[in-house]
């Protein structure tokens, strides 16, 4: 009982997709996931404001009022906010696949829900650090495009953008990524959440295009556990999504071949991504979210060390 109570009170439980699936609202999920993630970590210089004050700038609508310098207001009667050293040193664009194939799920969350949760959690994590986060969702075309913003309330827009009631099949990933690259004026971090069931060559070219524009690319390759394990037994009629034909077969008989093909696909994608200098992270829908969030932290740190401060 004590153990259960302890488990029930453990904020890291919200990293478990099964637990997260029980939370209906994506925004709340993201909050809980991040809280759970943060709770397990040591106090980190990665979070919060940098203690090193750099300069003032005049207040504009949307700036966090916690950073208002009241002393300057009392003297000048004008609002100025303080800028710290690491405050806006990351611009991240979350590219989330919301196509039909992402709708498959055998567990508590479908791929789409997992991707959305992961993306929302990452967005919240970054927004808490006053990093700028943008969103692009796509299926057959770009469905949502939100420029990166660092306000915490930008999370609402991101969460709204992640909802896609009528997913369609993926068609041209190269065009999608090309459009994404064109709409990112400055370099930043591009995190792709997708099952990557697309043309591999087009995918590689798309990633290459992003890398050529000096973006840091992280590919979160998301697949359902059944797609990974293929545990099916007994005669099954597999009805293909995204215009692929159906197949009636004995899954056990095809399992070996399927896994071989899948493995080849994953190897190809991983090699392609790493060859281009993109980070590749394979995710299962039954896996915890801390892998995603940890990855984002590492990227944030890498970018912070590498480049100047980015404006908020």
């Amino acid at each position, binding site marked *: 009982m004590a153990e259960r109570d302890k488990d029930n009170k453990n904020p890291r439980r919200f990293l478990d997709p099964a637990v997260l699936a029980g939370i209906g609202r994506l925004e709340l999920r993201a909050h809980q996931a991040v809280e759970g993630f943060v709770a397990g970590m040591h106090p980190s210089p990665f979070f919060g404001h940098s203690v090193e004050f750099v300069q003032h700038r005049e207040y504009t609508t949307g700036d966090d009022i916690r950073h208002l310098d009241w002393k300057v207001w009392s003297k000048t009667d004008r609002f100025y906010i303080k800028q710290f050293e690491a405050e806006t040193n990351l611009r991240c664009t979350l590219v989330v696949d919301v196509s039909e194939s992402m709708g*498959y799920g055998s567990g508590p969350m479908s791929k789409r829900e997992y991707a959305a949760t992961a993306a929302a959690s990452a967005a919240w994590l970054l927004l808490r650090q006053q990093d700028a986060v943008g969103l692009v969702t796509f299926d057959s075309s770009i469905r949502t495009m939100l420029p990166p913003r660092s306000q915490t309330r930008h999370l609402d827009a991101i969460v709204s953008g992640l909802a896609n009631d009528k997913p369609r099949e993926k068609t041209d990933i190269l065009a999608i990524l090309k459009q994404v690259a064109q709409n990112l004026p400055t370099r930043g971090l591009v995190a792709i959440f997708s099952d990557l069931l697309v043309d591999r060559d087009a995918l590689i070219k798309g990633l290459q295009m992003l890398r050529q524009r000096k973006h840091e690319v992280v590919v979160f390759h998301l697949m359902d556990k059944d797609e990974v394990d293929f545990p099916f037994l*007994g005669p099954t009629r597999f009805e293909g999504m995204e215009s692929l034909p159906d197949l009636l077969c004995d899954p*056990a008989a095809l399992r070996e071949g*399927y896994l*071989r*093909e899948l493995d080849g696909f*994953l190897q190809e994608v991983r090699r392609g991504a790493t060859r281009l200098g993109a980070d590749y992270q394979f995710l299962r829908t039954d896996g915890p979210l801390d892998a995603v969030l940890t990855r984002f932290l590492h990227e944030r740190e890498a970018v912070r060390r590498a480049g100047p401060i980015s404006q908020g």
Partner: protein
Amino acid sequence: MGGLLGLFLNPWALAAAGLLASIPVIIHLINRMRYRRVRWAAMEFLLAAQKRMKRKMVLEQMLLLASRVLLVLLFGFLLSRWLISGTPPTPPEDWVLHEVVLDDSVSMSDTSRDGGAGADCFALAKDGIKTLAEGALSSKTPVRLRLREVSEPAKVLFDEQIAEDSLATLTGLLEGLRMRPYQVSPAGAVEKAKADLSAQFPEQRTKKHLHLFSDVRKADWVDGPVRGWMNPTEGIAWTIHDCALPARGEETRPAAHGNLAVVALGSESKLALDGQPIECWARIANHGRQARSAFLAVELNGKRDTSASRQVETLPPGQSVEVRFRIIPSRGDAERAETAGPEGAPGQSGARDPLREGLARRAAASSMAVRVILEDDSGEGLAADNIRDMVLEVRPRVPLLVVDGTIQPGAVTSSDSLYFGAALNSQLFDPLFVETADLEKQDLGSFALVVLLNVGELQPGAVAKLSDYAQAGGGVAWFAGDRTDPAFCNRAFEQGGLFPLLLAGQPSPALSEKEREDLKRDESPKVVFPDPASPVVAGLLPFRPVFRHLRMERHWPAIEPSRWADQVETLLALPSRGWQVAGQRESMKREILEVLSLDKSPFTSPALAPVLPALEAEIGKVRSRIATQGQFEIVTALEELLRAQPQGQANPVPGTLWDRLELRDVQTRLRGLIRKIQQGDPLLVAREVGKGKVLAFLSSAGPASSRGGVTGDSPGVWNEWANGFLSATFPILVQDSLFYLLRQQSDARDKVFALAQGNDLGVFANPVVSESLYYPQRTGPQTQAAQAAAAVAKVPARLVSSAGANGTATWALQIDPQEHPGLLTFAFRPDPASSLVLRGGSAFNVGVGESDLERADVSEVDPREAGEEKAGPGREWFRLLPVGRVEAGESADGSLKRALDASETPWLILALLLLLAIEQFLAWRCSHLHQAQGQPAVKGVA
């Protein structure tokens, strides 16, 4: 197709397997229709895998399906018992069929004591059947055997193919079979067996054998139809297995065991009087070929009567001997007390109730069981026919109903009744005198005899009662007179013979005074004795010389003798009047001389030469009397001639002169002449009617007739027998006549034992049985001890009624079938309220037809034509063998060449197991379960 099916012992199992082989395919097709649906994103990998592995998958699935189909087919081969080697099984129409008939009649109990073996024919027969079946077991061709017994032809005891297990069943069945104490011919069972055998598989290719295991007695074959049923064209091979002892050899007529049997047991009278000795007789037959002796033990009511029992010293071979013994019956004190009841007496009002009196008379009778046991130390032959029972009715006196047609109204008796009653011994007879009108009211069954004195026409009801009474065994005596109605008597003759002959329309005319005086002076006999040896007249013979003084004036002449002479026994006759006519007299004399002419055959035969001188001397005496003497002297001379037995060398074989074949015809003609010369109208005649007898005295019982009789003339004397010079002989006439009527027919009441059923009780209101006892006849080595120890069995009895005449109910007492012959005695009350006890009894004896063990000659059994038996193989459709020598129907070479089927070879089973293992391996492989467990799905993806 037939050839193909012949390769399997159970071809239908193969057909079933063929159908079942489709099940794996059907299951596969069903499974293809039963699947779940999954919306799948990573379809491209699945399609690629399917494309890559399709060929391998199909191959594996086809192998699995083929192995399963093959498994089912192989299992089907196993169940259908596919013939791997040997000869295919024979269809039933090619089997060999054996119909076996076992004779279980009582003659099969003949036992041989040779060497102390003690086996009986029945046991030998059973062993023979077993040997036959064992021979069939080693036959190449399947053999089917069917067994039945002679006593129950329709009941088949065994009907199976001979195999190890069925042979054991047959052996057990044979051990349990027992002989029946029945007399039964094998003909019925053989006929039924032949019919059943002929009906099965009419195709000629079926080999059919009919076996009869019997003792092949001459009595069954000479008169029996079995031999006529054997016909070579019907495709049945007949084998008669002779089970008799000693074993049949090559002789034409084998020797038979000599058997002594009590073939008849009777008494001189069907009614015995309490305390009065009665003569009984037992006829013992010696069916052997050697003279034997035996001891005849007599038991009365279960107790040995030593005075009646006797040693029979000489029983000649092939003959039967009558052994007479005398017993004194007794009713017993208890039975006497039971009959002394109020119902035996007239009512208080004095009115006589004939039915109540009848019941009392019936109750006065009791039964006495008489059993004779032939004790024979030889131990040879049958024991069942050494015992015989009879039941005697014992009464204190003979109840007698006298119907007097001349009793005047208001009178108790008449002249005829007076003289008739006086002639009866009151110690022996209990008469009841009634007038004619009362006849119909009487319970005739309670009387042993009915006497009709000078009655006229009787009412139809009375006639019917009398007829039924006589048919059932009663005795009716008619005494004629002037009231006798010839038309009525002649009608009674025509309708069943209640009156024994036909009467003329008028009696003989009354004598004139002169004729009467002439009659007094006539010294010739007035009555002749056609058969002096008859027991009716035996008592009168000593008085024969004085019968010339008897005055017989009137009588009723008989007419048309051709219509009744063969059936009627003339006991007394009036002298012939023909001798008085000169022409007839001379003609008869000439006829005598002609018959006795020594110049003609047969006296000229050389065979008579040794006795001719003696014959000539005797014939000379007759010739001398013919010339000089009268009618009766000539008759006497002829009778003396027929009794003549010259001694010494003149008659090499004393006592057999007139038994010579050459003289038989002369003897017959002489006897006819004697009758013709002396015998006129019959005076006292007797005739058998049904089980009873009728006797008629054609003159009056008393001396005078009544007025106003049929004759219409004045009263006169008909005869003076009852009151004249010979009046002392009248009681002899009356009593001997009555006892003659009581003398029962031989074995008239003997019942052959088949199933002891019971007795007819008669017409009663609602009888109640108070006792029914059965005394079984039990035979054994110690017959006397066995008899003494035989428990008297109280047998359950049922009363069964059936509709009788005039709406009355006739009751019968039935008992359950008994296993042994024996005696039944019973007691019952005519109705529940009655205090009277009526007793009865019956004897059930083994039929005498089984006693003669004489065996049939080969020619009496073998139906083949002379020389046919030598015609060679294929013509031996008949065999007569001693039991135990049988041959198997087919080859008995001992080698078992029957078909070997798949179920008996381990290779097929091994192949089945191997295939099963392969199928399981393929099934496991195709399930891919081993791949689905414990392995990481994708490399590097934990």
